[in-house]
């Protein structure tokens, strides 16, 4: 008799060669679980190589997801179930699995050649290597071939279905309803009926195999999330890069402007360019430029000509775009600059996440170059942040940097589809009629923003450029004027603070310790805070979306706490800006391990601070 164990939360990780289809398998499990009513978060972990040699450690691709009956903020510190398609996948992922966790391996791949390649001296399935786990060694390759023996496909094509067989095993183990995935297979392989049938058969074969053989004495179920805590509405499952692209399209449509994205392919930002290339009919021009500089240059030209313009890149691309960002600062044209951060410096870790471009985008340019910087906290938040970046860029006639990162870009979560009409309006400083006495740099008093005058309007011909100008728009190298203009541009950016809502705050408004996050460190910090409060440790959490300028009331907020613990995926960058602007006591928790900092570490750090600093309280 198989026991059915109800769980609040479970973490599954699929790992295999880059070509094994692990991303797709994980994504299917995530989507069907979300549709079943669970909260689901995912983390895609790609190798830098497209198809590294089969079975090599460098070629292992992973996909982790956390399925939960309550709201969750991270993909989990430890893995409950690992599916490893070969020895290399086992080797690189086993350390993430909790003791007594479930390890499912494709035994067919554990031949001598492969386990030697993965660095094992002997077959890890035949010794005590996996003794502390519940290991299921299954000859998936053979079982798939048998299940598909009637189909007129080559052995290679049949083998390719083993990811669906493994999905079947996990679906049985987690009592998942596979209907939506079956529908998806039919839709996805609409033109390849035979492949659709093969994948469908493999999926069922995986489930049947578990039923028939009683491999596991326990199966798990994860209750659907308490519906009273979930907003009603239509939901979708979205990753960060798609959300960013859609946010831009929404902004352009609301602004009734063409959307122009000038970009150059770079990991992990490329998907934004690819996504936007699909929607030419929605007045989107996704222009693949000859280099990073041309990416932003074409965007700035498009902005001058009246498009809502954006450029997308990662850290190395920002370095190349810096001179053009300054031209946008100087000419005061709206521009959204998306930096999907990755591990640096230099080429660094292209496929791993990091938050180490903050100081670059804030201060990495010549001259006094104030700029707006905002950061998205979750994959779906990328939608709202892209929209907000565009809104501020247009209203204040300024470049705005939107920071996301590899974790958000490739991570997915469920997203309640918003009513577009309820988003804040796009405020455009439109000028459509000629006036001989106009001044291109005449400012509006509330924002200090200038009008957006687009070529083609009669009697408004004017010149802009990178040279300093006076308030009439005429070129000027006068020192006194330059001094005033630098302060004007700075004040304009400071005025953006009037747009900023109260930060996402959790916990009491006063206390000993305030945890601070920005960008994707939101998830781990919110989870840690929630866990700490549950066990009676009093901490609070403030998440910062607007990094430049800061929310105006931040000083008051901070003053309610004795210590600020700032958690970031870098060696301490937000802390630099906080300490420059506020007189506060800060402690940093910093890591650059290519993944978000784990919840347990944050909890330990918070406890240590409270124990050592406020002993006896």
């Amino acid at each position, binding site marked *: 008799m198989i026991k059915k164990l109800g769980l609040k939360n479970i973490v599954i990780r699929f790992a295999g060669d880059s070509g094994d289809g692990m991303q797709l398998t994980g994504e299917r499990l995530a*989507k069907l679980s*979300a*549709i079943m009513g669970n909260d689901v978060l995912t983390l895609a972990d790609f190798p830098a190589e497209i198809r590294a040699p089969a079975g090599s450690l460098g070629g292992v691709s992973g996909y982790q997801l956390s399925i939960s009956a309550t709201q969750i903020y991270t993909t989990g510190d430890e893995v409950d179930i690992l599916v490893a398609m070969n020895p290399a996948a086992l080797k690189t992922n086993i350390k993430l699995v909790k003791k007594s966790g479930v390890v499912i391996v494709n035994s067919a791949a554990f031949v001598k050649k492969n386990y030697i390649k993965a660095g094992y001296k002997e077959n890890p399935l035949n010794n005590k290597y996996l003794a502390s786990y519940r290991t299921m060694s299954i000859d998936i390759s053979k079982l798939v071939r048998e299940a598909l023996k009637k189909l007129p496909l080559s052995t290679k094509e049949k083998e390719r279905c083993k990811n669906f067989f493994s999905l079947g095993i996990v679906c049985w183990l987690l009592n998942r309803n596979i209907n*939506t995935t079956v529908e998806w297979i039919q839709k996805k392989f609409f033109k390849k009926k035979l492949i659709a049938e093969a994948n469908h058969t493999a999926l069922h074969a995986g489930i049947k195999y578990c039923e028939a053989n009683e491999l596991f004495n326990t199966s798990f179920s994860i209750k659907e999330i308490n*519906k009273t805590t*979930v907003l*009603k*509405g*239509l*939901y*979708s*499952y979205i990753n960060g890069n798609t959300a960013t692209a859609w946010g831009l*399209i*929404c902004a352009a*449509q609301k602004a009734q402007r*063409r959307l*122009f994205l*000038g970009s150059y392919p770079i990991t992990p930002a490329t998907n934004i360019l690819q996504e936007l290339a699909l*929607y*030419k*009919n*929605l*007045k989107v*021009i996704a*222009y693949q*430029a*000859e280099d990073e*500089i*041309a990416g932003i*240059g*074409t*965007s*700035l*030209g*498009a902005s*001058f*000509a*009246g*498009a809502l*313009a954006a450029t997308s890149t990662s850290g190395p691309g920002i370095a190349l775009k810096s001179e*053009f960002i300054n*031209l946008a600062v100087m000419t005061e044209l709206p521009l959204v600059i998306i930096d999907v951060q990755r591990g640096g410096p230099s080429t660094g870790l292209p496929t791993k996440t990091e938050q180490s471009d903050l100081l670059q985008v804030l201060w990495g340019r010549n001259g006094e170059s104030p700029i707006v910087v905002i950061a998205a906290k979750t994959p779906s938040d990328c939608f709202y942040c892209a929209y907000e970046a565009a809104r501020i860029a247009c209203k204040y006639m300024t470049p705005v940097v939107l920071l996301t990162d590899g974790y958000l870009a490739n991570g997915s979560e469920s997203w*309640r589809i*918003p009513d*577009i009409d309820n988003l804040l309006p796009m405020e455009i400083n439109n000028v459509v009629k000629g006036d001989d006495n106009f001044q291109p740099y005449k400012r509006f008093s509330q924002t200090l923003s200038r009008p957006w005058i*687009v*070529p*083609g*309007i*009669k*009697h*408004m*011909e*004017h*010149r*802009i*450029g*990178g*040279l300093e100008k006076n308030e009439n728009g005429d*070129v000027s190298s006068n020192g006194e004027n330059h001094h005033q203009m630098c302060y004007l541009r700075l004040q304009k950016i400071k005025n953006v603070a009037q747009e900023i809502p109260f930060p996402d705050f959790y916990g009491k408004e006063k206390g000993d310790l305030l945890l601070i996050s920005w960008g994707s460190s939101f998830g781990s910090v919110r989870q840690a805070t929630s866990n700490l409060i549950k066990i009676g440790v009093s901490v609070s959490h403030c998440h910062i979306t607007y990094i430049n300028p800061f929310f105006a009331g931040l000083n008051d907020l901070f003053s309610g706490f004795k210590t600020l613990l700032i958690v970031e995926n870098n060696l301490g960058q937000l802390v630099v800006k906080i300490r420059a602007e506020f007189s506060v006591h800060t402690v940093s928790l910093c890591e650059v391990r290519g993944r978000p900092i784990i919840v347990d570490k944050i909890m330990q750090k918070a406890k240590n601070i409270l124990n050592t600093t406020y002993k006896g309280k």
Partner: protein
Amino acid sequence: MNKLNITYNKKDFQSATSLKWCPGCGDYSIYNAVINAFTKLNIARENFLIVSGIGCSSRFPYYCETYGFHTIHGRAPTIAMGAKLTNPDLSIWIVTGDGDSLSIGGNHFIHILRKNPDIKILLFNNEIYGLTKGQFSPTSQKGLKTKTSPLGSIEKPLNIWALAVAINATFIARAVATDTKHMQKIIIDAGNHVGICVIEILTNCIIFNDDAFYPFESKSIRNDNIIFLMDGEPLIYGKNNNKGLVLKDMNLAVIDIKDENKKDVLRHSTNATAHTLHFLLANLVYPAFPLPVGILKKINVRTFEQIVMDQEKYQEEHAKIKNIHDLITSGDTWEVK
């Protein structure tokens, strides 16, 4: 194009900013030729956009009463491309120099030629860096002594025409700044061409590279040193039109024209589909050969922005996602009731 119901004169295109090139600079005559040409193009003034990079020539937009964008070093083609795609109705002119477009902006120069947007490039070539006060440029002649090449430049100069022919640019021309009339005609022809135009304009830097183009400027000798290319006309030159270009052993050769060899003289064609003779003409080196000026090549193909709009139209008819609502509900959705 509809006829404008307005006639412009030169003053309409002069901005209030006073010209600040060195006295005697060739850029003055180019300026006059350009604004004169603009009055004759049947384009509304508000639809002109002049984009420049950095350098002496790149101050140009400030002096014209059109829309203008003085950008950063070498990057004018990128700004121009973005503006063109956003508003294809604009008549966009890039004003650039030899350092700006061939050294720091070399990459953008190659790709804008390749992509063929309807943008005109006026490349002011003075074979020197002027604004930084006299260093050799990518078009400086070998041996030129400058502040950074005190013993003479050791670099082979870049041939703008040869580069443009190799990329198959759709309009390639050359003018000498002192010959205002000829230059103006070329600029008008470029203005009427639909596609990328490269006009190399030889302009004298009186301060740092004076008389670099003396053989092509001096009225007394230039006819022996220049060959004017005219579509459909024989390739002849010389004070008395007594010299001609012929093919000899896979090379071009100069002959003294006589009755018996008259028929061997090549006839110029701007729209020849084979590159070969255009390439040979582009590679003629003075003084063994005359310097060709005029329009080397002019062919019509669909422009980049036209193809972009074609695809947009195709998508409008065929795409399943028709609006923003379709888009945001296009994933696997489910409803929480």
